[in-house]
């Protein structure tokens, strides 16, 4: 995991309104958080509007695939959701036994071949037949997904052993043209699989791109908390990771450029051998660049004792030279990190620079 990994995720996702890639704990509670996060982007002030309900349903169904059907714990489930210009891509990945491949593949091919009216017929028939598969799903979920999106369901099986395969599934929901069938979309299932590979290679369990202000990102924080709790019994490690994460996000939004009333950024969290890393990247105004650079140069390589002294000094005297009061946050991150803070500030266009930072705990 390094700055260039962060850059590659930023480049892949930064045009999205919101993106979430997740491969951590998949309990029902996490489903609720993802739906909550998704709801934010379709918020029109009303209480659960049509779009929120519809997309929430699709997310819940994909999560069900993962929660209910992951046949083995040798690989984590995978969830992807991207909103690119109002086109919502939702993908899931989970392990299935190889004998399921033909059944699933036939079913999906069949559903993809049906017209809107035929799908409705199949739906009604399945509903009245009430033939539940042994895992408790009636196949209704897949039919509903096909009906609601109106687009082809995409899928892929990747063999991992003689008995098991990884099943990838993606649906596309175009909120601009609901129900209209389209053949070409920006992001294929293969893109999503590629992103999961990158996550696996670098031990990343969560990637989020979108508005990083606390109100929007609250569900992500709860998800991370859940995942941490499922991963290690080291209570103090969780706490440290969580504390640093909060400082990290608040630092991002303090310095972030606000574009169209949003403060977009990329956040990435991973774990390897009991060490956690938090990385992020966002745009900052060129005028703030020097100040940020100065603070990071000062604290990134400072010894722990000096960092603690610096922290106490600011606690006591405040930070009169720093109107944003952000030095305390940077010192806090630096002193909780087990490795020196890595960062990069790159000039880009339109008076903006891109600020990238990586910490390890």
């Amino acid at each position, binding site marked *: 995991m390094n700055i260039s990994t962060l850059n590659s995720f930023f480049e892949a996702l930064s045009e999205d309104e919101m993106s979430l890639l997740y491969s951590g704990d998949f309990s029902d509670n996490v489903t609720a958080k993802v739906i909550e996060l998704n709801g934010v982007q379709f918020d029109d002030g009303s209480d659960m509007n049509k779009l929120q309900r519809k997309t929430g349903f699709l997310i819940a169904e994909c999560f069900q695939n993962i929660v209910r059907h992951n046949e083995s714990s040798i690989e984590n489930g995978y969830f992807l959701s991207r909103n690119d210009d109002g086109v919502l891509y939702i993908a899931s990945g989970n392990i299935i036994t190889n004998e399921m491949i033909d059944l699933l593949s036939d079913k999906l091919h069949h559903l993809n071949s049906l017209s809107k009216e035929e799908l409705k017929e199949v739906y009604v028939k399945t509903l009245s037949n009430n033939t539940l598969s042994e895992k408790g799903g009636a196949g209704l979920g897949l039919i509903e997904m096909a009906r609601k999106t109106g687009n082809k369901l995409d899928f892929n099986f990747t063999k991992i052993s003689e008995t098991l395969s990884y099943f990838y599934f993606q649906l596309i929901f175009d909120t601009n043209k609901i129900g209209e069938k389209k053949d070409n979309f920006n992001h294929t299932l293969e893109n999503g699989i590629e992103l999961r590979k990158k996550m696996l290679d670098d031990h990343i369990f969560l990637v989020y791109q979108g508005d990083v202000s606390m*109100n929007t990102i609250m569900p992500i924080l709860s998800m991370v908390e859940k995942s941490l709790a499922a991963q290690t019994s080291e*209570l103090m490690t969780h706490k440290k990771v969580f504390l640093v994460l909060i400082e990290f996000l608040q630092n991002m939004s303090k310095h972030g450029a606000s574009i169209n009333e949003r403060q977009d950024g990329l956040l990435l969290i991973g774990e390897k051998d009991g060490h956690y890393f938090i990385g992020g990247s966002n745009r900052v105004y060129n005028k703030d660049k020097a100040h940020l650079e100065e603070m990071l140069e000062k604290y990134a390589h400072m010894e722990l004792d000096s960092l603690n002294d610096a922290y*106490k000094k600011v606690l*006591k005297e405040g930070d009169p030279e720093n109107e944003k009061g952000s030095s305390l946050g940077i010192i806090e991150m630096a002193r909780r990190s087990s490795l020196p803070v890595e960062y990069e500030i790159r000039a880009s266009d339109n008076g903006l620079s891109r600020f990238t930072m990586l910490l390890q705990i």
Partner: protein
Amino acid sequence: MQNELKISSTEFTPEVNLNAETGNLFFQGRSMPEDIAGFFDPISDWIKAYIENPKEKTELTIFYEYYNSSTARRMTEIIFDLEILQERGHEVKVIWCYKSGDMIMKENGEEIQSVIEVPFELQQITA
């Protein structure tokens, strides 16, 4: 000044209960507001008014689970305000609670203790 300032907790802001009748000031939970001034300014204003009309004895109890660095600074400022009371001959005490085993919150308390000059008691809370 209102006699009481009560704020309910949210996922990321603490429960606050400031009582001018008893002299008990209480903070509990998580404190990581993004808009730090929006949250703490009314609290600081209340404290500033209180020290002009204080009880003989003031006890500040803090029991945080998590807090961000800007909260640390604002809490220290609140204690600095209470130091004024102490200088005027009133009794002031800070009770810093932490959950048993929570070494981070314990150390954070000790750190704040090292920059202030009022009696400070660390209290381990066993659930």
